[in-house]
């Protein structure tokens, strides 16, 4: 056996390949610099890609939701059990489209108080209202739940334009308050850059974005190959480490003294309510507004008072009285805009008792509350539906 070759001889192919890669890379770099120089003073830039956030639960998503520990901590009448949560192919919470040829179609827009994630499927009021109206009127009724936790009225306008209008509803019902209040207090505008609430999403050309894309690709592969296992692992992880799913969406604004311009808040909210009414009318859809039911009494019960202190006052400096005043102001704005436009307002704020038997925190309905609210909504919509029926005849 002869003496071993040197490193170059032992790895001749690898070194050759490396040299070729370096030469190509070098040539590309030189060409790039040359082209950039040649293009002066004009500079080519691909810019920043953007899209509009469609805030919805993902079409064809299905799961059984268990309220996480931090949700249970801030509620006093929520039952810890599994709540089936299924989304149809058009992104509506099921049950939704029941009839291939409905005679009446309703669509409900709003945030988590419309979504009713922690309410039994058949008791969620958007579904239940449809069933009640079907019984009362004899009309084949489809009733769509387009609620999504965190949605403000601007998000609902996007949902209305791009998802609800194509199902050609006769009536669109919108309920907003606390999410709009939060965004306008912290961000001063609906067109915020807050990554959780912004209507626009930017895909900046950066290596960070490239890494995010790769991470997303990994998530897709994971969800394609082992969806159940990955879900189970996530649940286990949250159980062991603690659920950090409740990200503080307004983290950067916390701790700063909040300046509240009530007139501005009312103006911004009113404009969105007006836009909802106007879009609906342009599309020959009957708009209906709803005030938001709540447990904000003049003399709050201790749980609600304590909840306000820990979840609102700590981060904003807003006392219970201040917060209630703003919340009531928004409900009043809903009444005022509806009156100015001759639009039906279903006043859940006044009609729903402010008790834990119906709501498990400030504003979220439990099963009993959702059923209670369904009766009210169905009763109030009945004359509207009847008059539509008459018009159609």
């Amino acid at each position, binding site marked *: 056996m002869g003496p071993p070759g040197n490193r170059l001889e032992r790895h001749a192919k690898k070194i050759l390949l490396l040299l070729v890669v370096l030469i190509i890379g070098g040539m590309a770099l030189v060409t790039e610099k040359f082209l950039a120089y040649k293009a002066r003073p004009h500079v080519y830039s691909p810019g920043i890609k953007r899209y509009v956030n469609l805030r*919805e639960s993902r079409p064809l998503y*299905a799961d059984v939701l268990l309220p996480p520990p931090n949700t249970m901590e801030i509620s006093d009448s929520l039952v810890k059990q599994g709540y089936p949560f299924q989304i149809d192919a058009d992104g509506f919470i099921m049950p939704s489209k029941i009839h291939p040829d409905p005679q009446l179609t309703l669509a409900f827009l709003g945030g988590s108080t419309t979504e009713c994630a922690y309410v039994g499927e058949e008791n969620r009021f958007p579904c239940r209202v449809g069933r009640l109206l079907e019984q009362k009127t004899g009309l084949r009724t489809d009733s769509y739940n387009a609620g999504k936790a965190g949605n403000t009225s601007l998000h609902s306008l996007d949902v209305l334009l791009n998802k609800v209008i194509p199902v050609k509803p006769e009536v669109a019902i919108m309920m907003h308050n606390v999410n709009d209040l939060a965004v306008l207090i912290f961000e001063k505008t609906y067109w915020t850059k807050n990554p959780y609430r912004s209507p626009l999403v930017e895909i900046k050309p950066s290596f960070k974005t490239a890494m995010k894309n790769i991470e997303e690709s990994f998530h897709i592969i994971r969800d394609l190959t082992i969806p159940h296992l990955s879900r189970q692992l996530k649940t286990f992880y949250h159980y062991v480490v603690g659920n950090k799913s409740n990200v503080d969406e307004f983290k950067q604004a916390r701790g700063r003294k909040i300046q509240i311009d009530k007139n501005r808040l009312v103006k911004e909210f009113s404009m969105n309510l007006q836009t909802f009414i106007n879009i609906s009318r342009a599309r020959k859809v009957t708009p209906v507004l709803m005030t938001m039911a709540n447990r904000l009494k003049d003399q709050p019960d201790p749980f609600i008072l304590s909840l306000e202190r820990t979840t609102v006052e700590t981060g904003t400096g807003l006392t219970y009285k201040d917060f209630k005043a703003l919340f009531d102001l928004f409900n009043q704005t809903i009444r005022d805009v509806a009156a100015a436009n001759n639009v039906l307002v279903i006043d859940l704020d006044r009609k729903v008792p402010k008790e834990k038997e119906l709501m498990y925190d400030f504003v979220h309905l439990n099963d009993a509350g959702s059923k209670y609210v369904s009766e009210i909504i169905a009763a109030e919509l009945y004359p509207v539906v009847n008059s539509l029926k008459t018009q159609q005849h």
Partner: protein
Amino acid sequence: MDTGPDRKNWLERNPKKVIGALVLLAIIGLAVASETLLARKNHGLIHPAGIQRSIKLREFNPLYRDVLVPSPEAMRVSDGLVQKPYRLRVDRQGFIMPAKIHGRPDLSLVFLGGSTTECVYVDEDNRFPYLAGRLLERQTHLKVNSYNAGRSGNNTLHCINVLVNKVVNLKPDIVVLMENINDLAILMYDQTYWNDHPSRSPLIEKPPAFKTVGQDLEQTFHLIRDLTFPNLSRELRQWFSIGSRSKKDEFHGVRGKKITIDQDMLVREFSLNLQTFINICRAREITPVLMTQASRLTESPGPLIRTLMRKLEVDQGITYSDFKSAFDRLNQTIREVGAKNRVLVIDLAREIPPVKENIADVAHFNDQGSKLVAGRIAAALTPIIDRLAKKPLSGN
């Protein structure tokens, strides 16, 4: 050479690789078994992925910069276009520049529309959305910002999404909408604005599929390419596009199929969107203005127009007169919706001579045409501006 009984086999020579492979197989096997067990336990009721969707914001990318030269294909389909470089710059808000000139304007205008508003092949300072602002400034002595939110291929639904998500936040005084041919195309071919068309659909879907992974990885590649070699990749793309025939046919899926134009449906759908535009503006205290679309679709079209429209007849069975009739009907719809709502209609279809000196092909303005249009717009808007409520100087 070691050929004796002491020679080790492959397994013995590579023990680490073998153990690694075995461990990997065991993990995969365990994962598959767990997945199957859990799927059975959940009775197939759980689909944790779902389809991710978003709404297209059809605009030029903010901070986009380029110099565009009409391709040979673009020159082939026009006879009033000058083949030279046209600069295109886009500001941080996604408007074609020049846009925000004044920090505290007295008046803000926004123009929405498709490529006939975009005016890519018009010199920067002659694009009518910008030029109309300059002319108004001279006439009214107000500080005017004038924004071009046109984007090739946009129809009225796209414009409404741009209005709600991008324009309204600027708090403009006036928004001007000009649409026709893009709406005509999408309604003819897809019968609805809410379609699955890959480039004209309002929604983007990302289903959980390997195809989506491929697309994401492709996007990642493009990102890295644009970060590291933006000019080189642009140059290579231009070489390839010269080699390939033409820009992609967005409606290739319907070519060869006979299309019947249902004018009632076109008018109904188009009117609803025009009304939606007007109503949104009014809810936001913005003055809406409509414009009919100018064109060279005349009773006696020139040879170029005849040739261009002949393709439609051959591919889809749509005669020139059918198409012109539908186009005119949509312009008439604009007038009617404007009148019904007491909204100003700037009737470019009647005011701009349909000649190649103004319009480079069927509907796209060249420099001269764009300047003429800017003059008409400025003249039409001046009385409205005089009637607008005076805004405090803090303005936008």
